[in-house]
C-alpha cells in the first residue's frame, strides 16, 4: 500500500457531462478525510467516482496505486466499501443480514466476522434486531460495522452524521476516528458536518466541482474558507482549543 490510498489526477467526473473538473487530490492512507461543500458541489459524485459509479471523462483515478479504469467492478470490494446515508430497508432485514451482505474480498462476510465487527463497535446486542426498526444513530453504526467487516482498506461514507442528534453524532464521529486509529483503514466521508471535519485528519472543501481548499482542519475550518465555501458570513472562534462556528446573519438572534 502506498502513501496515498486514493489519487485523483486531473480527473473530470460526472454523469452525462462532467460535474467535477480537473480535480487533483491525494488522500493519505490510514486517515480520516472529510469532503465539505454546499449542496450540489459534487461531494457524492466524488465518492461515486471511486467506485466507478460516476463516469471519468478525463484524467486518472488511482486506488491503492492502481488505475481504476483497470479495476473491474467485480474486483472493487477488494479495495473499497461504500456506505450510503440510507439504504432501502423497508423490508425486514436483520442487523446481521445487513452486515453479512458485505463482500469480504472475493466471498461474503461470515456470521462470525459480522458479529466480531458488531462487537468491536459495541452493538452486538442488536445483531438480531430488524434494521428498519433501529434509530438513525444505530443504523449508521451498523453501516460502519458492515464496512468494517468487509476488511476493505478504504471506506467511503456518504453523510455519516446527517440527521443525527448531538449524542449520536459524536458517537459516529468517535467510531470513525477509532477505526482509523486502531484498524489503520482510510475513511473518506462526504457531508456538511463541521464537527466531523474538525475531527478529521484532512478536509477537502469542494465548491462548484472544484477543490477550493484542502488541508488539515485548522487550515480549512476558518472564517475565510467557510464564508467563501457556503456564501454566508462565518466566523470561527477558538475557545480553549475548541472551535466555535458563528454565522453572522441579521435573522439569527
Amino acid at each position, binding site marked *: 500500500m502506498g502513501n496515498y490510498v486514493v489519487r485523483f489526477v486531473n480527473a473530470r467526473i460526472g454523469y452525462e457531462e462532467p460535474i467535477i473538473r480537473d480535480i487533483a487530490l491525494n488522500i493519505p492512507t490510514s486517515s480520516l478525510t472529510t469532503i465539505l461543500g454546499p449542496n450540489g458541489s459534487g461531494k457524492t459524485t466524488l465518492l461515486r467516482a471511486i467506485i466507478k459509479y460516476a463516469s471519468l471523462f478525463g484524467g486518472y483515478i488511482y486506488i491503492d496505486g492502481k488505475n481504476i479504469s483497470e479495476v473491474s467492478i467485480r474486483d472493487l470490494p477488494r479495495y473499497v466499501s461504500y456506505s450510503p446515508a440510507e439504504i432501502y430497508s*423497508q423490508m425486514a432485514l436483520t442487523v446481521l443480514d445487513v452486515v453479512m451482505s458485505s463482500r469480504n474480498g472475493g466471498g461474503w462476510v461470515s456470521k462470525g466476522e459480522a458479529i466480531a465487527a458488531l462487537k468491536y463497535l459495541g452493538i452486538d446486542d442488536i445483531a438480531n434486531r430488524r434494521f428498519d426498526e433501529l434509530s438513525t444513530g444505530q443504523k449508521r453504526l451498523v453501516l460502519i460495522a458492515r464496512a468494517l467487516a468487509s476488511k476493505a482498506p478504504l471506506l467511503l461514507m456518504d453523510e455519516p452524521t446527517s440527521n443525527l442528534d448531538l449524542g449520536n453524532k459524536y458517537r459516529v464521529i468517535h467510531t470513525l476516528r477509532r477505526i482509523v486509529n486502531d484498524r489503520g483503514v482510510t475513511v473518506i466521508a462526504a457531508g456538511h458536518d463541521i464537527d466531523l471535519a474538525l475531527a478529521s485528519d484532512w478536509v477537502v472543501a469542494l465548491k462548484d466541482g472544484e477543490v477550493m481548499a484542502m488541508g488539515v482542519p485548522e487550515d480549512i475550518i476558518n472564517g475565510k474558507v467557510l464564508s467563501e465555501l457556503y456564501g454566508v458570513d462565518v466566523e470561527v472562534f477558538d475557545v480553549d482549543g475548541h472551535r466555535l462556528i458563528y454565522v453572522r446573519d441579521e435573522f439569527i438572534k
Partner: protein
Amino acid sequence: MITTVKDFIIKFLWIFIPLLLIGIVLNLIIGEVTIPIKALFDPTNAYRIIMMDIRLPEVLACLVVGSNLAVAGAVMQAVFRNPLAEPYVTGTASGALFGALLGLLTYALFRASPLSPIILMPILSFLGALLATSIVVIFGRGYWLSLILAGIAVSILFSSIVMILDTYLLTIIPTLPAIVYLLFGTVSGVNWGEDIVMLSVSLPILVYIVMSSHEINLLMMSDEVAQAGGVSPRAFRNLLIALVGLLTAVTVSFTGIIGFVGLMTPHITRLLISSSDNSRVIPLSVISGSTIMLYANVASKVLVPGVVMPITAITSLFGVPVLLVLLRGGRNG
C-alpha cells in the same frame, strides 16, 4: 430466548412441506372424476390415464407456475425496491400474453412457419413481456406508486389489445379454440410437452436467481452498495428484468395470467420467516408459491362443482387484500 430467523425457517418448512404434499395429493384426486386415495397406489387403467395424462401434468404445472411467479415477484420487489411489484401489477404478464397471442396469430396466418406454437408463443411472449416492462420502467420512474400506476395502465392497454386480437382471431379462424381464457389463467389442459418446455426454460433461471440472491440483496439496498459490492447495478438489473420476463412469458404462454401469486407469496414468506434476506426468501418462495398454486387450482375446481373457475379469480380473492394492506401500510413490506 431469542427466536432467530433459523427457527422461523424450520417452522416455515414444518408448515409448508406437509401442505405441499397434501396439495399434490388433493390435486391428483380432485377433478371432474374423483379418484379414491386408495387408487393412487393401485390405479385402474382409467384412473392411471387420468392421473398420468391430466392430473400429473397439472400438478407439475402448478409447481412450475407457482415457483416462477413467486420468484418473479420476489426479484421484482427487490429490483424496483417496491413491495408492490410483481409481473401482474407491473404489466409484464399482460405484455407476455399479448406476445403469446401474437405468436398464435402468426402461426394461424402463416401455417408454413417452421416454429410450432409451443415454441413461437413463448418467444413472442418474452418480447411482449420485455416491451411492457420497458414501458413501465420508463414511465413509472420517480414516486414509488408511479411504477404501479404505469403497470395498471400498461396492463389495461395490453388486455384491450388481447381482447381485440382474440376476437379477430376467432373471426378469421372460427375453428380455433377461444384463448381469451388465458386472460383468466388456468392450468387445466396443460400437457407434458408444455410442462417440459416450461420446466426446461424455468429451472436454469430459478437456479441462477437462487444462486445470485446475495447479489440481489445488494441491489435491493442501493445502486452504489451493489457497485461497491462488485455487482454492476444497471447490467444486473437489466439481466434480472429479462429473466423475470422469461419466467413470466413461459408461464403466461401456457397457463395465462395468474395474478397476485407473485405479490403475496414473497410477503407471506417474509412474514413467516421474519426476514427479507433474499437468500432465504427466494428459495422458500419456491415452496410457498408452489403450495399456493396447488391449493388455488383445487379451489378453482371445487368452488362450483363441475365448473373450473379461473385461477386468477381465486388468487385475486386472497391477493387483493394483501395489496390493500400493503398500500395502507405505505411502503412497509
